[in-house]
């Protein structure tokens, strides 16, 4: 009995989530205007959360941040860790697929990759040793990032101003 109703409610919940996240058809009987209002607010909420937790990314994307994040957010659901930083990293990957990244955006992505590890329960700060070596796309400069247990993350070859 519970198993049957679980299936039925799970289906409507899934339909509702698809309507909110993917813009799919709204399940019958729901207030369409209000469901669409929530759908819009979900992308705004993700954008605001990202701006709060990762301001340097927003600055580097520049004036087009709102438009670009909205385009990304409407086509890409929140990563399963439901974490704003992970969302930001996926946004950087999406941006890089759209147009060649600037040095600044590449640096943001590398810094994230050196520091964070994604797990099913969310983001985990990486421990122990880690290394990132990359050639920046615009200046062609080499960048070296090193994580050690006692000094955290350090970078060499960072362009001035970064």
């Amino acid at each position: 009995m519970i198993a049957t109703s679980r299936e039925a409610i799970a289906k409507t919940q899934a339909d509702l989530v698809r309507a909110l996240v993917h813009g799919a058809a709204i399940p019958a009987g729901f207030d369409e205007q209000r469901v669409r209002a929530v759908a819009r607010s979900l992308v705004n909420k993700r954008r605001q959360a990202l701006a709060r937790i990762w301001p340097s990314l927003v600055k580097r994307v520049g004036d087009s941040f709102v438009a670009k994040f909205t385009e990304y957010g409407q086509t890409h659901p929140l990563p399963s860790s439901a974490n704003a930083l992970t969302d930001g990293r996926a946004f950087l990957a999406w941006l890089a697929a759209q147009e060649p990244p600037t040095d600044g955006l590449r640096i943001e992505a590398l810094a994230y990759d050196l520091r964070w590890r994604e797990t099913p329960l969310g983001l985990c700060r990486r421990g122990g040793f880690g290394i990132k070596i990359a050639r920046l796309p615009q200046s062609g400069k080499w960048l070296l990032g090193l994580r050690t247990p006692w000094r955290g993350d350090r970078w060499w070859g960072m362009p001035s101003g970064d």
Partner: protein
Amino acid sequence: MALSLPNLGLGIGWRAQLAHAILNRPDIGFVEILAEDYFLNEAIPAPLQTLHDRGVHIIPHGVGLNLGGAEAIDPARLAALGELAQRMQAPFVSEHIAFVRAAGLETGHLLPIPRTPAMLDILVENIRLAEAALPVPLVLENIAILFDWPNAEMDEAAFLNAICERTDAMLLLDLENIYANARNLGGDPVALLDRLPLERVAYVHVAGGYEANGIFHDTHAHPLPEDVVALVEALYARAAVPGVMLERDDRFPDDAELNTELDAIVAAMQRGNIERHERGFAHPVLSDA
């Protein structure tokens, strides 16, 4: 059945941006932390440790358990919440009467569930499973909704009463959510208070929001509406609940503005306490906050 709860008094949602103001208020009795932010980080941040050493209760508040989801609860999240409660020596943990994901899609948002007998059975099963797995009591929060399910058979008060009758869960009463729902979907917040099992309230949330295009948005980023402060007074006039906390998550105010809001909350609790004593309400007096 009412569990014995600590007297919490005044509280606030812990945010690093508010650390200075929080550490400088000796009357803060509890802070709430976003549980998922601490699942995988071993160390307790120094300012939280300072608060803990002062005897301030730290309450893990989850958003990802999906108690209102018709899919099975993720045991890993439940275990992480329980471990966090022990790490923070929390008196209890709180979560929402909502669903947040389905079919592998995360919404990052607390979504309404149908208030039907079938959903109630699922929710009760999920809550009992969570209660059995958690090392501390579970406290459940009412959410703000912009739309309802078309097949709702109970109103919110009836649904919350039914949850309390069938589980041991306590309530985290979010007065701003009650206020927002009344504005967006109709209803009288004070009449709702009269129908709730107030002896089961473990603590209370208040926050601000703003109205746009005829919809009141529960933002936690705007000043506390006077009507919500009035609901704190109306609540305390009915029952001595253990504590009230402010949620402020964005557009952070300076210390003076934050303190003015916290003072307004304390004053409303005190006015309500006086009214309750004067009127000699029948509700049990748990404590004098």
